């Protein structure tokens, strides 16, 4: 039951365009007690179906710059291979700290942007 509540809550945040994915990882680590890597893997896998629907919608609405997407994807696929291989070979405690630093920075960034009263890109 808890897992569905977490999914529902994170989904609502995503729907509101507030980074739901970023909070899914700590929610899984703290409440479901899965290792850091598994939490990240679940986050990645569960993102795929929603992203697929979103991409198809954006394509239909002509919101995708295909040439730009293609150029960026070449680099991002290389980065993904390196990054995920690295993630699966470091200690879970270290990875958790790295994730924590990123999350802390993102949180501060969100607060500062909300104080500026501007729409976040």
């Amino acid at each position: 039951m808890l897992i569905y509540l977490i999914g529902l809550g994170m989904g609502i945040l995503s729907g509101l365009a507030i980074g739901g994915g970023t909070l899914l990882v700590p929610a899984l680590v703290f409440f479901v007690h899965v290792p850091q890597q598994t939490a990240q893997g679940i986050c990645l896998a569960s993102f795929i179906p929603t992203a697929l629907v979103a991409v198809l919608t954006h394509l239909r609405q002509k919101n995708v710059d295909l040439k730009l997407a293609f150029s960026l994807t070449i680099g991002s696929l290389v980065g993904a291979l390196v990054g995920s291989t690295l993630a699966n070979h470091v200690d879970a405690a270290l990875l958790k700290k790295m994730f924590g630093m990123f999350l802390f920075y993102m949180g501060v960034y969100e607060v500062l942007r909300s104080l500026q009263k501007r729409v976040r890109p």
Partner: protein
Amino acid sequence: MHFSSGDLLRLGSIGVLTGLINGLLGIGGGTILIPAMVFLLKKEQHIAHGTSLAVILPTAIVSTVVYHANSQIDWSLALKIALSGMVGGYLGAKLMEQIPATSLRRIFGIFMAAAGLRMIF
């Protein structure tokens, strides 16, 4: 749109960084990609959103394959999160007009920063 070698270097670096974050931390990468497209590449907001998702989808698939190869994906949990997440996403999108996103974003920014600190220490 013609790309100069400077553009290619810039696009390549943004792409690799996005992929690295995606693979290493298991989160989208839109947090890097969308501001990069808006501020560095001067793309319009909605194009940046659509294009970012089109880049992140294949990136997340590659990362998922690597995590799966390392037995770090609990597919049963991922499925439950994906399903409840979709329901939540729909609710969140519906709620968007009624909820003051700025103050909510600030609250969740504080949540993120706190969760980040908790993960570091």
